[in-house]
């Protein structure tokens, strides 16, 4: 295997004299092939992660009540569009300033719109493909927040928060690691974003949920938890499977290269591990809810699969399949305990986003040193804490400002009648009420 590893390099060196004549050659050079495959990985990974937006939309639409479905879907469409625009406008260049361009070295990048009309740098990848791919991660972070705050947050204040999250909060904290900032210098390891995307989204959601308050009627005066079941578990399940599929791009394409035998094998291993973690998370929740409640809870199984995926996201390459199994299974277990625990704290998280993304995100981040050399539990915790504190505090401030100025909560009457009629004047299932 070692000899084969050096083959592309040797071939590339041997071809240096002929590179000048590359334009006349019929076939791409090895460097050009590497560029093409790297770019292809970003493009495929990019649209797979894009597809996760559909997954979130269906999952959330299915777990809210009918009277709130249209609003929830509108939030999902809106947040994705805002993420795409903000990431172009300032997000990408805050996150990837490039060496020597930091405004505050290792902490805050540059402020400018992203330009994709750049020269082709053979052996690398298309700049446009990297922008496209990374944009999807930014959008994913935002969609985590919309699930938690469903059924009582107002549409426009939420979208304004998304502007801040996608344009400023996410790009800054992600730059600390993926942009070459101080976390990566420290040895923090987060392959595809258990902390940078999932825990970050979870912290923003937690801040929002605390400022927003629980839904009316969710917690009785005596301290009982009153279920408000979702309207369509078929959609919720579809959404989960869509997210599961998209995650292959989320983790797989984070290898960031596919032009060598090693790289493409790594992508394949990541796909296999990612899938195993999801499966293990789902089964863990399946068994645990049966044992704890005497009946399986489908919504917990769905959450379990997603928690498994989040858990493997910080280190999807290095574990064995068995490693991916127990890492994902613990994620599933976490969710089954965390959901009722949040209810005990009277933090109303409609879809379980905080257990799935924040808590499982911490677990995924923490467990990396078990299989990845050169990392340590201490560094992982520091990295998680740095991102967590930053995102939580800034989000808390943003939500408090929005609450004090625009107000973030729909009126009591609007919440009872359903946000669809008050925020949008449009129902998701009009035939069932008006006939």
């Amino acid at each position, binding site marked *: 295997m070692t000899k084969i590893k050096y083959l592309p390099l040797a071939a590339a060196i041997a071809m240096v004299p002929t590179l000048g004549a590359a334009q006349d050659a019929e076939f791409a050079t090895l460097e050009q092939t590497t560029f093409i495959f790297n770019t292809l990985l970003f493009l495929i990974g990019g649209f797979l992660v894009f597809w996760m937006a559909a997954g979130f939309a269906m999952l959330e639409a299915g777990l809210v009540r009918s009277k709130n479905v249209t609003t929830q879907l509108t939030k999902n469409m809106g947040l994705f569009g805002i993420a795409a625009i903000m990431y172009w406008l300032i997000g990408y260049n805050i996150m990837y300033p490039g060496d020597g361009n930091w405004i505050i070295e290792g902490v805050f990048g540059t402020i400018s719109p992203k330009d994709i009309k750049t020269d082709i740098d053979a052996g690398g990848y298309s700049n446009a493909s990297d922008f496209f791919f990374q944009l999807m991660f930014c959008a994913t972070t935002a969609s985590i927040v919309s699930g938690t705050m469903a059924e009582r947050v107002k549409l426009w204040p939420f979208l304004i928060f998304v502007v801040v999250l996608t344009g400023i909060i996410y790009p800054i904290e992600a730059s600390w690691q993926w942009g070459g900032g101080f976390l990566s210098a420290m040895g923090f390891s987060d392959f595809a974003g258990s902390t940078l995307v999932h825990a970050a989204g979870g912290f923003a959601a937690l801040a929002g949920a605390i400022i927003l308050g629980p839904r009316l009627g969710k917690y009785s005066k005596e301290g*009982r*938890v009153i*279920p408000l079941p979702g309207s369509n578990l078929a959609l919720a399940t579809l959404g989960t499977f869509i997210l599961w599929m998209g995650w292959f791009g989320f983790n797989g394409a984070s290898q960031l290269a596919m032009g060598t035998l090693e790289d493409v094998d790594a992508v394949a291993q990541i796909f296999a591990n990612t899938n195993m973690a999801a499966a293990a998370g789902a089964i863990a929740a399946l068994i645990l809810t049966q044992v704890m409640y005497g*009946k399986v809870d489908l919504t917990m199984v769905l959450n379990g699969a997603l928690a498994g995926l989040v858990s493997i996201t910080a280190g999807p390459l290095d574990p064995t399949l068995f490693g991916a199994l127990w890492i994902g299974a613990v994620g599933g277990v976490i969710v089954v305990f965390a959901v009722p625990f949040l*209810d005990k704290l009277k933090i109303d998280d409609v879809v*379980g986003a905080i257990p799935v993304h924040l808590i499982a995100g911490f677990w995924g981040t923490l467990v990396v040193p078990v299989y990845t050399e050169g990392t340590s539990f201490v560094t992982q915790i520091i990295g998680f804490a740095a991102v967590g504190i930053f995102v939580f505090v800034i989000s808390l401030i943003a939500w408090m400002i929005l609450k004090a100025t625009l107000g973030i909560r729909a009126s009591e009457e609007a919440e009872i009648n359903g946000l669809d009629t008050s925020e949008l004047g449009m129902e998701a299932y009009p035939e069932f009420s008006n006939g």
Partner: protein
Amino acid sequence: MKLIIATIKPFKLEQVREALTEAGIRGLMVTEVKGFGAQSGHTEIYRGAEYVVNFVPKVKLELVVADSMADQIVEVISTSARTGKIGDGKIFVLDVNQTVRVRTGETGEDAI
């Protein structure tokens, strides 16, 4: 003329409809309702929180028949809807003051 209101178990609807048609009725209204009588609800659990479902889905039939047919129709519904278990339903018989056929303007028993 008599208005017959009956609540039955939803899965019995097809059997009752067939029996009524054979008995010669010419009109029937059906509504999906929830309710409880002797049959109480059950407990469910959602994301770790228990809740009691108090109402049971039922189907309500409403039909207007001539006085002479009322007893026979009540018997037909009773027999075809019965399972012998709790929750089979109830039948109520009310007097009807007037009946009108919208298309022709006929009134009384001719309009049934």
